[in-house]
C-alpha cells in the first residue's frame, strides 16, 4: 500500500512524515517525530492518555488516522512547557500533587489546556465534566481538579493585573 506525505504543524513547527494512511496519529507523534510525551494507555479511545490538541480540539490521538491529520495544527505536551519553563498547568499539577505515577498526566494537561481556553472561570463541576474523557487510576482526581481550578484562578489573576 502506498505511503502518503503527511504535512502537519506540530508544536509550531512544520513537519513532513512519510507514513501509511492507517497509521494512528499517536504512533506518528511517538515513533516518527519522537514526541513520546503523548502516552498510549488503552488504545481504544477510553482513557484519554493520548489526548493532544488538534485544530483547537482535544482529540484522542489513538483514534485518529494519520491521513485524517493532514494539514492539522497539533500541540502535544512537549509544545506546552519545557523542563526549564513549565506551563502554568504543569506548575499547578506539581504544586497540588495532581499526579502520582504520571502516566495520564500529558493527556490530562493537554485536555485541561483546551478546556480552560473554552471556560476560563470553571466551577468544580465544570472541571469534572470537562475532564471526564481522561482516566487516572492513582489520584482519585481530587488533586487534578484542584490543580486545574488553581490554574484558572492564577490565569484570571494574571489577566487582572495585566
Amino acid at each position: 500500500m502506498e505511503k502518503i506525505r503527511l504535512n502537519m504543524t506540530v508544536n509550531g513547527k512544520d513537519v513532513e512524515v512519510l507514513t501509511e494512511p492507517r497509521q494512528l496519529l499517536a504512533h506518528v507523534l511517538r515513533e516518527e517525530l519522537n514526541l513520546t510525551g503523548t502516552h498510549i494507555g488503552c488504545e481504544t479511545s477510553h482513557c484519554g492518555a493520548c489526548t493532544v490538541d488538534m485544530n483547537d480540539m482535544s482529540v484522542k490521538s489513538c483514534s485518529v488516522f494519520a491521513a485524517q491529520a493532514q494539514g492539522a495544527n497539533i500541540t502535544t505536551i512537549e509544545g506546552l512547557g519545557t523542563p526549564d519553563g513549565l506551563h502554568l498547568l504543569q506548575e499547578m499539577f506539581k504544586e497540588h500533587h495532581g499526579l502520582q505515577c504520571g502516566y495520564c498526566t500529558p493527556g490530562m494537561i493537554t485536555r485541561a489546556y483546551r478546556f480552560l481556553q473554552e471556560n476560563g472561570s470553571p466551577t468544580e463541576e465544570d472541571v469534572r465534566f470537562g475532564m471526564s474523557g481522561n482516566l487516572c487510576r492513582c489520584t482519585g482526581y481530587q488533586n487534578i481538579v484542584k490543580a486545574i481550578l488553581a490554574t484558572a484562578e492564577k490565569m484570571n489573576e494574571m489577566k487582572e493585573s495585566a
Partner: protein
Amino acid sequence: MIPSNFEYHKPDSIDGALSILTEWGDDARVIAGGHSLIPVMKQRLTDISHLIDLGGISELKGISIENNKVSIGAMTTQHELITNTQLAKFVPLIREASLQIADPQVRYVGTIGGNVANGDPANDMPGLMQTLDASYELTGPNGVRIVKARDFYEAAYFTAREDEEILTSISFSVPNCGYAYEKQKRKIGDYATAAAGVLINMDNDTCSFASIALTNLSDTPVYCEEAVNNLVGKKVDSNAIKKAVHYCVEASDPVADTRGPVEFKKYVAGIIVQKAIENAIARV
C-alpha cells in the same frame, strides 16, 4: 492495534464521494468522525480497502433554522450541536442529549450523521431523532430520497440506507413544547443502560401532544406509539404517567449483557421514562 491497509480518499463534494463509493462498492466505506468505525477497524472486525473521509465536504456541515424547520448537515459534530446557541435556544433537547454522549474528546469529533447512520442501538441520536420525528436525507447515485427516522432502523447495524447511499442531512420541526432526554449509564462515556427522549405539550392538565422513544432497549430505537396514544387527549395525573411508563417498558426488548440482566434493564427503563416524562411536563 493497527488496522489492515486501506487506500484513503478525501473528496471535497458529495458527488465525488458517491463516485468513489460506486466505483469500489463493497470494498469501500465512508468515515465521518470515525469513533465507531476506527475501533472496529483496529480490531480487524471489518475489512475495508477504500476509506472515504467525508471530512472535506463543506456541504455536509452546518446547522440552519428557518421557518420552524431545523436542518443539520451530517458532518456536524456533537460539540457543534452543544455550542450552537440558536439550536440550544430553539431545540434545547438536542443539547441536553448531546452532552450525555461519550466524553468531550469524542464529542469534538463524533458527528450526528455517523451517530444516526451507523445503526448501533446503543447510540443516542437515533432514539432522539425518533422522538423529534426527524427525516433523514439519503443521497445516492440516483438522487436524493427522504426516510423518516421512525422507519430507518431495521435491526442492529441494519438500516434503510443502501450501500451506495450517504446520509447527508437530518431535518425536523422545532418542537415548541416540554422536553427531556434522560439516560442511565454506568459511568460517563458509557452507552446507556436505558435512555429515553420525551416531548410533551399540555393544554391545562390535558396532554395535547407527546412523543417518546427509547435508546439501547432493543436492537433498534423504540418509538413508543402505544404510550403516546394513551397520553394524548388524556388528563395527565400520576396514574396516566404510570400507564404510559408501563406501555414504554412493554415496548422495550432489551438483551442481557454487561450492563445487566433483562429484568434490571426493564426496571431502569421504567424509572428513566418516568423521570423523562415528569421533567418534560415541568418544562412545558
